[in-house]
């Protein structure tokens, strides 16, 4: 199912020419200034390195700046004839069968209570539109933790009972999580994909309004050449200061940036992995992911599958759009700086893998650019670090250089030429390109009264932008060191060894902060002392970077504070429309999380272990058995292994078993039935376990 290639549309080409020309000219201008500074006495190798690094980093900043600027222009004028939501398509056949859409939530050891509260909220919101009949829900579990697995099954059954969702709300746990999330979705597509025309892929913490889901389907129906429609997820629901600052930034700047992305990407946009609708047939035909040859980090499973799937769809001639003006698409973000860095660690390897794909045959130019942008979102950090180091070293050698005032036949002194004006211009241009988008986003609030009030009014929003800027200046060097460490660890095939990310709000302790940021603080102190001693003039320019590193521990701890997050909210700082005027779907989520009356009585209990409950409780045992996929009876060796685990459980209790061992026991129906009978056949060990 490959699409015929359409001739390029003049409007699309014109936009791209304007955008890339602006980015190119700005980069060349800044480079010209740098070269004029360096070339007077010839360009030294160190200066050449600086020039190359600056060219790469500045072009990256330019793309970001002009994206924001174009977004500003689009939002300001309110005119965008190429927005996918506003393009007209062929008339729909009124008698054609209505499309069926599957809403997929792939999960992996997540907080089940939050997952199902979110899914219920989406279901409730969809029911409010009266269009529930066109949608089915799938919880696609790749969970390995035995306690979480059993909890998920109970929560699913409770949701089905509470919402009368039998035959509409489905659940399955994959026996093996082959190829992680992409394998999980592939499993859905190849087993049940034939029932549906579309799938809407969510993340475990995604929330979407029912109206948005209905609108996404409507757009897909109107545009049969579109295979994937991405909505921009707005960050919500966190209460720590760190998360509230990020939520504010995402809400205020995000709208402008996504409008800007759509300005030049148009039908060759990207897929961000969730909160997107996908036409299933082309996905089946073109998005089967191969394993890349070679070892990790560049070989093996494709980790950041979303970019690759979008590129494969484009390669087959299908369109991929970003519906930047569709509201009602939300996600939750990490609550602390450390959790944010942990998430980066997971994403970093997949994005670096894209370097190999960017140079592969067959993909179109914009897909390659998406891959390179993915790489640069992490590779930029080590490059910035190298740039800072090279600048420091170059400045040190400049201080060692004795100026010669008399040379040749000159009888009057020849004063060294000062390039302070050029260097200051380069710095100012760079800073403007980094910070002007924040001012532009603020200016957009002047146009929209409702949005202005929702962000706390112009004064509070301006103050919030100033504080957010200060915060991003302080945290940028910390993230630079984190990402540099991740990139190096991945390239050297070294594990960084961090525990799983915590999604819920929680405070960072001093111990955790000191362990995580101690080395960064030390680097800041040593770099500060060295630059102050050897390159004092450079030291003062270097202060924002040094300050971020030296203050990493207190900034990380304070920003994780929920109390400070609440206080900022009371003061009207970092407010977002989702906080000031929460949409109904978020109210549903809050109600579901607070609700303490599950339909299933067994959920009212909070046993120490759902694993033990699956062995002992007749209902939980039967439900779990009913959800196990059919499998071949175990072989002799496997039976002996399971037998050994049963004896271990009998003699040493459940805590002696590892999570994979517990999972093995829970996965075999015969063993489960036997353990259930064994538990009930013995006199209770104590009152807690059996009636």
């Amino acid at each position: 199912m490959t699409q015929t290639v359409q001739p390029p549309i003049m409007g699309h080409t014109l936009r791209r020419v304007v955008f890339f020309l602006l980015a190119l000219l700005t980069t060349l201008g800044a480079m010209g200034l740098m070269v004029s500074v360096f070339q007077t006495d010839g360009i030294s190798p160190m200066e050449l390195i600086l020039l190359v690094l600056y060219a790469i980093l500045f072009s990256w900043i330019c793309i970001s700046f002009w994206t924001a600027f174009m977004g500003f222009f689009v939002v300001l004028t309110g005119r965008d004839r190429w927005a996918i939501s506003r393009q007209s398509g062929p008339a729909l056949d009124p008698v054609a069968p209505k499309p069926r859409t599957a809403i997929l939530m792939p999960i992996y050891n997540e907080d089940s209570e939050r997952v199902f509260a979110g899914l219920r909220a989406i279901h409730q919101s969809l029911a409010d539109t009266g269009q529930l009949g066109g949608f089915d829900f799938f919880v696609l579990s790749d969970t390995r933790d035995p306690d979480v697995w059993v909890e998920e099954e109970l929560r699913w059954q409770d949701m089905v009972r509470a919402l009368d969702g039998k035959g509409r709300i489905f659940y399955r746990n994959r026996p093996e999580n082959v190829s992680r999330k992409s394998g999980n979705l592939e499993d859905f597509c190849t087993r049940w994909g034939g029932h549906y025309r579309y799938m809407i892929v969510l993340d475990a913490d995604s929330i979407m309004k029912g109206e948005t889901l209905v609108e996404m389907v409507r757009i897909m129906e109107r545009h049969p050449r579109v295979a994937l429609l991405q909505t921009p997820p707005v960050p919500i629901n966190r209460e720590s200061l760190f998360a509230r600052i990020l939520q504010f930034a995402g809400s205020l700047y995000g709208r402008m940036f996504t409008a800007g992305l759509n300005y030049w990407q148009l039908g060759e946009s990207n897929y961000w992995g969730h909160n997107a609708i996908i036409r299933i047939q082309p996905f089946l035909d073109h998005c089967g992911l191969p394993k890349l040859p070679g070892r990790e980090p560049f070989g093996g499973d494709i980790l950041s599958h979303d970019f690759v799937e979008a590129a494969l769809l484009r390669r087959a001639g299908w369109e991929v759009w970003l519906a930047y003006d569709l509201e009602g698409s939300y996600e939750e973000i990490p609550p602390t700086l450390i959790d944010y860095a942990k998430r980066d660690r997971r994403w970093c390897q997949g994005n670096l893998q894209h370097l190999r794909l960017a140079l592969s045959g067959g993909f179109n130019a914009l897909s390659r650019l998406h891959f390179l942008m993915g790489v640069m979102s992490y590779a930029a950090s080590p490059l910035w670090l190298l740039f800072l180091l090279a600048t420091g070293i170059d400045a040190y050698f400049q201080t060692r250089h004795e100026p010669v005032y008399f040379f040749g036949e000159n009888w009057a002194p020849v004063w060294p030429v000062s390039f302070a004006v050029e260097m200051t211009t380069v710095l100012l241009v760079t800073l403007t390109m980094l910070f002007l988008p924040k001012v532009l986003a603020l200016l957009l609030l002047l146009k929209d009264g409702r949005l202005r009030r929702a962000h706390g009014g112009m004064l509070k929003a301006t103050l919030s932008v100033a504080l957010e800027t200060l915060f991003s200046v302080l945290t940028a060097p910390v993230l630079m060191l984190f990402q540099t460490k991740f990139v190096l660890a991945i390239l050297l095939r070294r594990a960084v060894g961090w525990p799983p990310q915590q999604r819920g709000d929680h405070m960072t302790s001093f111990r955790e902060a000191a362990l995580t940021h101690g080395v960064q603080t030390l680097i800041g102190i040593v770099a500060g002392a060295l630059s102050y001693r050897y390159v004092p003039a450079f030291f003062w320019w270097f202060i924002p970077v040094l300050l971020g590193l030296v203050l990493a521990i207190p900034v990380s701890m304070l920003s994780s504070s929920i109390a400070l997050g609440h206080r900022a909210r009371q003061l009207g700082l970092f407010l977002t429309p989702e906080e000031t005027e929460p949409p109904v779907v978020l109210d549903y989520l809050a109600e579901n999380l607070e609700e303490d009356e599950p339909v299933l009585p067994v959920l009212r209990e909070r046993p120490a272990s759902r694993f033990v409950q699956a062995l002992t409780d007749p209902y939980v045992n039967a439900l779990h058995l009913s959800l196990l996929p059919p499998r071949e009876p175990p072989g002799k060796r496997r039976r002996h292994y399971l037998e050994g685990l049963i004896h271990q459980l009998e003699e040493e209790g459940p805590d002696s078993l590892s999570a994979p061992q517990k999972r093995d026991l829970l996965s075999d129906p015969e063993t489960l039935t036997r353990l259930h009978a064994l538990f009930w056949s013995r006199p209770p060990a104590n009152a807690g376990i059996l009636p």
Partner: protein
Amino acid sequence: MDRNKVGVAEPYLPPPPLPSSEFALARLGGYWRALGVSDPDQIAALSEQALRRAAESPESPGLDAVARALVAAGELLDEWLARALDLPRSPPELAAARAALLSGAAPNWPAALFAAPGEADTVLDALRAARAEPVPAPSPGAMPAQRIELFGSLNSLRRLWRPQPRA
């Protein structure tokens, strides 16, 4: 449950007691009560059936007489469910029916167990409605792995050397 107190010398599950019919009846009684049967006469009748069934069943490795009786109790229930709901006797189907029975959807199911055919339709309808349906019927599709031609300096040279014919 204080698992800290559980050691190797003191097994997590106490060793099986010497088989006695009183003990077996007590454990079976506890099990039936946990399933939702409260009438002592019904419990006695069901336990007796389970014991008889266990005695007739072949020895299973790793299961003593009481455990076998408990397995038989479950099978009794499954048998009734299969007959009453007209289900195929596949383990997942039966487990789903048993889960529906124990979910609280039909609290008066023990009465239906002893009722004459046709007198328990309400209970059976409730059980049919409460049976879990975890996934829809399969509708499979193929998802072939795509070919990605990775960059390699040798590949480029090879292409230069032997350019592919134009289509």
